[in-house]
């Protein structure tokens, strides 16, 4: 096992990894930008090294500086968290070439799955259903039109290198298809230096269901069941839960088995997530693999009782999984609310600043993952996630009641947060009944 690990991230996930290291008795070194100099979680680490100014390109995204920090800190491994360099195969490769283990998948698997077209091909080869669409990239408008008519409108135009909904467009007829492709190409060229796009059948009002996977270096791959992340705003997840409401158990089993097949076909190791769309008829379609730990991973930790970040570290250290698929059970119902420093009353404008009051919920069945506290200044430089509020209860109705209570207890002053929006969500009858899809938030709140 490693004696010393560096966390190449910030905020709540940096603290999450620090906690996992402490719980394993491993020394942990944090890195920070000048914008995070005062963050209290840095004191929890055994060491903290400044790697640059607030601008991410000069700090959390700067590979040479992170590697040098790892070298002077004399660590054996780097945990990338999520975002920043976590899905950068080049970074993984550099770490390993410096004899520092990258706590994540092999760079080859990252490259393979990072390309949506390759991932899609692999899924089809593994007998995992995919959204009907163009086999490969769109060369010209004529081909696009033929395909669109073949699969039927509406169709989705996606950037091969895109993600998080960036570079995605719906086309409902020939004209919007042609203009859409043109714009998507330009956008993708600008954003990812890769203008290639492809077409997909557009699934109306789908649910977003993803499967958590753990794979060790000894050929053992298990799934930790699913998470329903349908509650999204502009493709940003707001609420995640497990189990997925109203998902027939035979469909659940088939989705989970498909995810395992795909992960094995990619020779994937460590923690990963397979994302699927589920349509109104409970048909499911593979979308993509997230080759990292995810923001919402605690939902799975609560229902399975397995600490995913500790398992990531054990796997990276070469340990075999200490449990088999039969040992993994989905117990009770867990829900997560993402508390962002945003103003729901002002179109979710970011609301950085100093927190003047922080009355956190607690008690039975409540878990709070946060790096914030009264007096903490939320820097304007980074994403707005300030806390993840989770509940775990024997049943979904009890989990809803517990979350309602926890949200009512949660008082934050000095910055605006998404807490009021979550309070409304948990009193919304459609959500309470589990009848939501990825368009729910826009349909329900954007029109007001």
């Amino acid at each position, binding site marked *: 096992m490693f004696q010393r690990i560096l966390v190449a991230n910030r905020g709540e996930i940096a603290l999450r990894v620090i906690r996992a290291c402490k719980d394993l008795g491993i020394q942990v070194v944090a890195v920070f930008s000048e914008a995070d100099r005062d963050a209290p979680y840095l004191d929890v680490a055994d060491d903290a090294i400044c790697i640059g100014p607030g601008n991410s390109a000069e700090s959390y995204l700067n590979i040479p500086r992170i590697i040098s920090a790892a070298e002077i800190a004399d660590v054996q491994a780097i945990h990338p968290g999520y975002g920043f360099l976590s899905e950068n195969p080049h970074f993984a490769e550099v770490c390993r070439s410096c004899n520092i283990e990258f706590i994540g998948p092999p760079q080859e698997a990252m490259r393979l799955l990072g390309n949506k077209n390759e991932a899609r091909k692999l899924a089809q080869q593994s007998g995992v259903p995919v959204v009907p669409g163009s086999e490969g990239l769109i060369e010209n408008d004529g081909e696009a039109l033929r395909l669109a008519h073949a699969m039927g409108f509406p169709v989705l135009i996606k950037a091969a290198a895109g993600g998080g909904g960036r570079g995605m467009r719906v086309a409902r007829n020939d004209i919007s298809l042609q203009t859409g492709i043109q714009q998507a190409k330009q956008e993708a060229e600008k954003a990812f230096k890769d203008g290639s796009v492809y077409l997909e059948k557009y699934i109306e009002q789908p649910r977003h269901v993803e499967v958590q996977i753990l794979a060790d270096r000894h050929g053992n791959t298990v799934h930790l069941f699913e998470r329903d992340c349908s509650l999204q705003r502009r493709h940003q997840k707001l609420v995640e839960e497990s189990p997925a409401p109203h998902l027939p158990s035979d469909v659940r089993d088939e989705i989970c088995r498909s995810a395992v097949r795909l992960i094995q076909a990619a020779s994937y190791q460590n923690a990963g997530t397979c994302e699927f769309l589920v349509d109104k008829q409970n048909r499911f379609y593979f979308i993509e693999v997230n080759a990292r730990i995810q923001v919402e991973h605690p939902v799975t930790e609560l229902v399975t009782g397995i600490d995913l970040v500790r398992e990531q570290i054990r796997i990276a250290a070469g340990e075999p999984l200490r449990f088999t698929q039969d040992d993994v059970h989905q117990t009770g119902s867990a829900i997560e609310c993402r508390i962002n420093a945003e103003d729901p*009353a002002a*179109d979710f404008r970011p609301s950085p600043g100093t927190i003047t009051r922080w009355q956190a919920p607690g008690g039975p069945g409540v878990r709070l993952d946060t790096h914030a506290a009264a007096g903490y200044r939320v820097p304007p430089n980074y994403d707005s996630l300030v806390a993840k509020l989770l509940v775990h209860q024997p049943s979904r109705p009890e989990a809803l009641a517990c979350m309602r209570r926890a949200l009512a207890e949660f008082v934050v002053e000095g910055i605006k947060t998404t807490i009021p929006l979550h*309070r*409304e969500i948990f009193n*919304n009858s459609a959500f309470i009944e589990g009848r939501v899809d990825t368009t729910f938030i826009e349909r329900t*709140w954007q*029109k*007001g």
Partner: protein
Amino acid sequence: MADDAKIPSPFDLRTIKYLVALMGRYDLSEIDLREGDLRIRLRRGPRGIAVQTLGPTLATATPIVSPNASPAPAGAPSGDAKPDVPARNLISVKSPTPGTFYASPNPGAPPFVQAGARVTPTTVVGVIEAMKIFNEIQAECTGVVAEICVENQQPVEYGQVLLKVDPAG
């Protein structure tokens, strides 16, 4: 569903609930808040608590009016709100226990005292019923009743102001 179909506002249920609690606990007579086009005003007097919100929050605001509240006439001119912040020269007669306040010895009978009445320390100004026992409340001061702050048969908590006496009156 109509309630849900809105951007959440700074005046969510909790905000108002909190304000109402504040008024109760600190004996405030009025709170008036504005933010942009949103406004909420809470007034508290003999009629109990009145909640009034203008702008998108009206629908969500109403349900949490406290049990003994009666909504104010919508859009009542703010002139209505006679601020009764305790003046320095008035003496407050407070409840010695949680219980139910009775303004008169028995139903239908005239009240023990009314505004303008002269009281001495032994003047009975009301009765508090607690656990079926009726405790007579005496003024314990001399002066003229300036204001009765609670209604007949209103529940009161420990230390709640029942009436105010002007010793100079």
